[in-house]
């Protein structure tokens, strides 16, 4: 009994920053990192550079190890954050440059180039790491936490650096959202209006690289790309405005960092990075199911309603074709072409009666005046659409909307009149 209660109490205290200096530091660091990567990751995703960020993350490893070696030469006694990050940034940028160089070659496509650079740099990094670990084993403690991330070892200076860099990245992204957004949406157009697209791209990619590099000590170089992609993917399910997506993505990233760090401090021996990424993944899953309009539940409900309406339209049309009324036991025959079950037919008739489209007296179903007028409208529309498709098959089939109440909502009055003429001519002998 005692275990879960203390865990939740612990978790709550850490979450509300009442659990000591160290845990608070870590939470501030990871949540500001999450926020920055959520914001700048949105641009990376929209510019279709998300995998490039992955390559960048993996390509930092040889630089991290190289930076460590150099710092040993200059007299350091263990891993220090600054030389490692500088080394990581250098090899990460070298990796990105190599990808850019390779795609200019006609036989290598971008996905292949990214995979190539990502795996060879990471392989090189792992080899360097094991060599270093066997030769200077006493001083390498903590170096492999750069692979999976370990936020709990962050010092006050690390967190201050992380937080101020994150703030800088967020401010730059928000301030420059117009040129950034335009280059992401339509780089050619942006270039013709005089934006220096190459330099804007470089700045965007630089911000992404910056977030990657400062995020590596906290979440590790394997998973830092998740913080760039996942919050944005979740945010896009909630809004269709760029500024909202930026804000929501930043918020989701921040929450992931906050909850992830709190969770990993209240559970023993769990690395911070994967937990943060799992929290972000949970937020994405939640959004995917519950987001309004674009979530799974909402779109399932929409299609359910649409199918019901289509069934109602079909039923009314059948009634019109059958002189407006039919006996109760004739319903299955009336709808036989639809293949509906008896249960479905019963439910459908109940719905139509509730909407006052049909009435039932002494076991005979018949259309009410409003049901009749609706049925006639539907019938006319469907005939007009059929005619439209026959006579205007060459243009824009995506104009056809069988379910609209009035064809006039989609087609011009002239065209509707023309179609009606054609229908009349066609029906005369």
């Amino acid at each position, binding site marked *: 009994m005692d275990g879960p209660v203390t865990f939740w109490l612990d978790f709550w205290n850490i979450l509300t920053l009442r659990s000591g200096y160290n845990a608070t530091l870590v939470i501030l660091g990871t949540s500001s990192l999450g926020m920055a990567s959520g914001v700048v990751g949105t641009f990376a995703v929209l510019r279709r550079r998300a995998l490039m960020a992955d390559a960048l993350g993996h390509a930092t490893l040889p630089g991290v190890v190289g930076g460590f070696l150099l710092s040993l030469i200059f007299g350091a006694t263990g891993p220090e954050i600054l030389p490692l990050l500088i080394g990581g940034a250098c090899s990460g940028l070298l990796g990105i440059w190599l990808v850019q160089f390779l795609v200019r070659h006609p036989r290598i496509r971008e996905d292949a180039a990214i995979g190539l650079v990502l795996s060879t740099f990471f392989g090189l990094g792992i080899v360097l790491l094991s060599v270093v670990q066997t030769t200077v084993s006493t001083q390498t403690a903590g170096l492999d936490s750069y692979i999976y991330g370990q936020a709990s070892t962050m010092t006050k200076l690390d967190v201050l650096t992380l937080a101020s860099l994150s703030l800088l990245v967020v401010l730059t992204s928000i301030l420059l959202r117009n040129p950034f957004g335009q280059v992401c*949406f339509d780089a050619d157009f942006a*270039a*013709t209006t005089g934006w220096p697209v190459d330099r804007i791209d470089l700045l965007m990619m630089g911000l992404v690289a910056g977030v990657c590099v400062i995020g590596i000590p906290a979440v590790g170089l394997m998973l830092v790309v998740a913080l760039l992609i996942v919050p944005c993917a979740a945010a896009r399910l909630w809004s*269709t405005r760029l500024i909202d997506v930026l804000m929501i993505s930043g918020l989701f990233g921040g929450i992931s960092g906050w909850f992830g760090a709190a969770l990993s401090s209240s559970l023993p021996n769990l690395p911070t990075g994967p937990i943060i990424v799992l929290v972000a993944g949970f937020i994405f899953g939640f959004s995917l199911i519950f987001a309004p309009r674009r979530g799974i539940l909402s779109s399932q409900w929409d299609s359910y309603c649409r199918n019901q309406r289509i069934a109602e339209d079909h039923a009314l049309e059948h009634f019109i074709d059958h002189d407006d009324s039919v006996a109760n036991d004739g319903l299955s025959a009336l709808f036989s072409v639809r293949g509906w079950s008896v249960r479905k037919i019963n439910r459908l008739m109940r719905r139509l009666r509730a909407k006052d489209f049909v009435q039932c007296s002494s076991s005979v179903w018949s259309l009410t005046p409003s049901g009749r007028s609706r049925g006639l409208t539907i019938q006319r529309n469907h005939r007009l659409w059929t005619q439209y498709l026959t006579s205007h098959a060459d243009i824009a089939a995506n104009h056809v909307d069988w379910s609209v109440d009035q064809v006039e909502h989609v087609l011009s009055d002239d065209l509707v009149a023309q179609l009606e003429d054609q229908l009349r001519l066609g029906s005369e002998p």
Partner: protein
Amino acid sequence: MSPIHRPEHSTNSPLSIHAMTVAYDRKPVLWDVDYDAPEEPRLIAIVGPNGAGKSTLIKACLGLVPRASGLVAFRGKPLDDVRSTIGYVPQRESVDWEFPVTALDVVCMGRYRKIGWFRPVRQKDRNAALVCLDRVGLADLADRQIRQLSGGQQQRVFLARALAQEADLYFMDEPFAGVDAATEQAILGVLREMKNEGRTIIVVHHDLQTVPSSFDEVIFLNMRVVDSGPVAEVFHEDNLRKTYGGRLTMLAEAAEAVARSERR
């Protein structure tokens, strides 16, 4: 052999192309193109078979693909001096229509350069963009996400963005591709209005049949300029054959187009 004839270039022409050659991967796609647009506002069609370099021509004029040689001048000035007076409508397929923006946001992008690096889009800009959307008949759909627009509506959003640029010279890459007849007429109506306001509009066009009725001038392009000039003077079977070569279906279509233009 006679020496290569070099036309005199006018510094008053809104677009003059001097001996421009463009190559992708060592293989030239445009060879030694010389062209001067008339000084007066005109609706100009670029026609030619697939792979003739129509899109490449306008992209090279706009500096989007590098030129191997030659130069382009706009009323005697280089591109960098006159960017704000040049508008562009790219092909509809060139962008991601899932992008989180509304129709109005896209039109506002036509004014981003004027707005500048750091300033937000203000009400004044939004109003101006709304006027442009209204001109193409989409004011009602200003707040729609662009995915929810039909192909013809997306094309008109691009046109509205170009209107928001308030340029003097426009390049449009197949603005009539995949739109229905009614939308084509609507777009053409806007283009004519733009011309009457004094703007020159150069359109990559694929439908030969509508050239005589819709355009003032035509450029026949097949890796080089076959001929160019007023439709009434140069739109004839000889040029069509020179441009489209032995493509039989195109020839049949062309013959019909010529017959139509002669009937007019």
